[in-house]
């Protein structure tokens, strides 16, 4: 077992014990909520895992490197950042995909750009955001977030 696994499970256990002593009824409700959201996200998780498994055995690392590897440079980062902005998949299930990309030769900057735009920029949720927060704030936030994601990715690529 990796240390991340131990840490995450220990954190959950501590929270659970603490919550139990604070309010039993609420804790029971939390566990029901947790079970429900687990069952809700499970099919998506399983699907992405099957796809990632196939993907990493069918697509050779050389192809991935060509498009989003270190030598792909700017165009690779921008392309995958744009993909992340348009795609609407829960971040939780994007990490196995990100890990597979990284293990098969994608540049750190590309993977960082993908995850960051995936979460920060939401093309699909634009109408809802405009409705609630107005067009100006929404467009400013999303376009600046895209630029920031690329900057964050470039810094990560240089340091790591």
């Amino acid at each position, binding site marked *: 077992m990796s240390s991340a696994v131990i840490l995450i499970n220990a954190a959950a256990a501590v929270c659970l014990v603490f919550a139990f002593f604070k309010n039993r009824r609420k804790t029971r409700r939390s566990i029901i909520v947790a*079970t429900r959201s687990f069952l809700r996200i499970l099919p998506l998780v*399983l*699907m992405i895992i099957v796809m990632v498994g196939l993907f990493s055995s069918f697509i050779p690392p050389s192809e991935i490197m060509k498009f989003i590897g270190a030598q792909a440079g700017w165009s690779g980062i921008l392309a995958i950042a744009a993909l992340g902005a348009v795609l609407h998949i829960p971040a939780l299930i994007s990490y196995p995909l990100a890990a597979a990309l990284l293990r098969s030769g994608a540049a750190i900057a590309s*993977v*960082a750009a993908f995850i960051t735009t995936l979460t920060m920029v939401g093309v699909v949720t634009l109408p809802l955001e405009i409705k609630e927060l107005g067009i100006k704030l929404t467009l400013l936030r999303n376009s600046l977030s895209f630029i920031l994601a690329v900057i964050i990715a470039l810094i990560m690529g240089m340091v790591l």
Partner: protein
Amino acid sequence: MNIQNTEKTRKQNSSPRKIFRDYLIFGAALAAGLILLLIFPDKKEAAAAATWSYFREMMAILPAVMIIMGLFSVFISKDQVVKYLGKASGVKGPVLALFFGALPTGPLYIAFPLASALIKKGARISNVVVFISAWACIKIPQELVELQFLGFEFMGMRLLLTIFFVILMGLLIEQLVSQKKPKKSPRQ
């Protein structure tokens, strides 16, 4: 404030029909994968090994992540978030915005009406932007899964950079928005 409305959307989104549909999609993906592997039997071993290893990695943490999410969503109400964040000022503002944004309390489409309620309550635009961004990309369960799959260095570095730039972006957007419409920020 139409938090109730979003609650409804959330319920519809998690209706048994949609979950059933998701399981069907997973079934289809699995079937397509199996057919593909029948056509290319030499890939079978690598694909099975990769799938199994990702499955194990995910299942080792997913229940725990869901428990943490469930606890936070029940114990911290949306009204509490609006109450504390609406009047936060100074350094406390962005810190609280980050904190409440990062607490795992649901998908992004719940954050928009909350943010709108915050603006109406007179919260600073910069804090609202930090709040939405934190909600979108610094969620605690998300960071935990990132830690598991991409390692401590990657996760920690991306987290620090994101916090820094998100606060910067909040201040910048506040400047841009209030320059043209100074009346729109009802601060005392």
